[in-house]
């Protein structure tokens, strides 16, 4: 098999010399890394027998950002900005994994209001991540208009992000020790309106797609991932739930107070692309439910831990207390240090289990930060899902696997 060097062209074709089942020659087709329907800079080397996929070899690393190395060069509190940017469709969820890991090593527990605000942000993000997924997958399978609807609601979520943190996408809102600041009253008004209106919008997306004959024929029976296989390859998130296994970290290993919310784990037995689509739609409905509950029972109180060694003192104290000034100075010149040890915290992102493993050597910078990314593991299942499908279906399979290349390559 000869594979030409990535020429930058969308597709290049090489003849392999091998014979396929119908006597024809196997062709090697190079997809990407710049190709409009590979969801980012993914490159696939596909061996085709006629139109049938016989082998898929993903080539990754085109978005390798060196985030893990970068975080070793940053202080504990500075590292948060990097966590936003690896899985760029769910920044607060990654913040949460990192924050929880640091907090577990430090042995602190955030106050209930901070936990609830964290849940609100995570669920909003899950919604926006699924909306981006739905819109772009729609485009890839030829349903242009879905994108317009999805991004309309995504923009509402972005406005809320902006209201609560001052920024649209990479909010860095959840930080070790709590959250950036308490939410404004306007944020809660926006959220209440959103929770009221969102279910109707989800119905709209379903009207567009669920019974749409083209959408159904392009997704039903495509990209089967049997439950046993899903477990073996380590799939998580909608990939494993679309294979009928009710595995959701928010339920099985609750964190940040998820055990107090009443929601269902969306599953579907279809094991195909359509099942994954239904699971995500159902998850959006559940997310709205969680948002409603969080809004109703939002506890009062502080949003940060009361630990001067970890978080800066309030502004007023700086004018009266010398100690506060010293703490403030120390925090912003050298940061805090974390006791030696290692910890792994996993959270459920829009794509599955996104975990953060950190090792501290007792200094003010991490020794090692490793992100366990769901996309990286899910992408390995691609070959098993795509085998013997038509080449055109490959797009549907990549689409519904919902890999974020920033998360794969980090």
């Amino acid at each position: 098999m000869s594979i030409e060097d990535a020429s930058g062209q969308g597709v290049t074709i090489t003849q392999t010399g091998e014979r396929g089942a119908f006597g024809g020659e196997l062709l090697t087709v190079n997809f990407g890394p710049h190709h409009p329907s590979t969801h980012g800079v993914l490159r696939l080397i596909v061996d085709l027998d006629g139109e049938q996929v016989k082998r898929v070899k993903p080539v990754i690393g085109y978005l390798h950002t060196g985030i893990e190395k970068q975080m070793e060069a940053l202080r504990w509190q500075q590292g948060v900005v990097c966590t936003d940017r690896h899985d760029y469709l769910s920044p607060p969820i990654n913040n949460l994994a990192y924050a929880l890991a640091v907090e577990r090593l430090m042995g602190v527990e955030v106050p209930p209001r901070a936990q609830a605000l964290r849940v609100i942000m995570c669920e909003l993000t899950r919604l926006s991540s699924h909306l981006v997924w739905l819109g772009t997958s729609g485009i890839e399978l030829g349903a242009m208009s879905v994108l317009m609807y999805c991004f309309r609601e995504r923009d509402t979520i972005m406005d809320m992000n902006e209201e609560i943190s001052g920024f649209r996408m990479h909010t860095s809102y959840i930080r070790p020790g709590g959250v950036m600041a308490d939410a404004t009253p306007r944020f809660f008004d926006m959220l209440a309106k959103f929770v009221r209106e969102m279910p109707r919008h989800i119905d709209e997306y379903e009207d567009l797609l669920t019974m749409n004959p083209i959408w159904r024929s392009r997704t039903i029976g495509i990209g089967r991932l049997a439950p046993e296989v899903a477990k073996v390859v380590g799939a998580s998130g909608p990939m494993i739930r679309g294979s009928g296994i009710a595995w959701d970290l928010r339920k099985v290993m609750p964190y940040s107070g998820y055990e107090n919310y009443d929601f269902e784990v969306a599953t579907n037995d279809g094991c195909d692309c359509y099942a994954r689509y239904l699971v995500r739609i159902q998850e959006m409905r559940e997310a709205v439910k969680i948002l409603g509950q969080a809004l109703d029972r939002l506890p009062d109180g502080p949003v940060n831990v009361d630990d001067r060694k970890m978080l800066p003192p309030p502004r007023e104290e700086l004018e009266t207390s010398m100690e506060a000034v010293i703490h403030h100075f120390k925090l912003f010149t050298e940061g805090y240090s974390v006791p030696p040890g290692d910890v792994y915290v996993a959270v459920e992102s829009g794509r599955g289990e996104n975990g953060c493993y950190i090792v501290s050597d007792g200094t003010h910078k991490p020794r090692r930060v490793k992100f366990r990314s769901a996309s990286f593991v899910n992408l390995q299942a691609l070959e098993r899902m795509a085998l013997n499908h038509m080449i055109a279906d490959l797009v549907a399979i990549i689409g519904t696997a919902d890999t974020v290349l920033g998360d794969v390559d980090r």
Partner: protein
Amino acid sequence: MIAEELITDKGVSAGDEWITVPAPRLREAMAALKEDGYRLLVFLTCVDHLADASKEWPARFELLYEVRDMEKLRDLRVRAFVDGEPPEIDSVHDLFPPANWDERETYDLFGVVFSGHPELTRILMPDDWVGYPLRRDYPVGGEPVEFSEEHETWLTPPPEA
């Protein structure tokens, strides 16, 4: 059950259980754990303990395998220490399929050789890259920035360590 003599050390770190196994017998230990119900490899990675003053480390590279039992909902971290240039350990890709890419990534970024791996090539960095970026003696790189802290190379730990 994993045999007692395979466990050289064990403990709990911030609520996570861990055991240490001798590096040459890692495969044996992992197979036993798989029998024991830990069917899923959550992730696999490496930590470089070069100039780490927090503790006596048996070797420079620590390999970590986080395994999970999805029925009983328990996690276990398996550590193995390796030294040498290149550091070498057995591959577990056939016991735990997700290890395939994880091992390639660890090879790419740390230069740890997994013997028995079918295709141990670079995965994230370009094929012709020289060096293993996540080792502590590899500089962060990038460009110097004026009016900022110097980029550290971490050959020496920070003074307060």
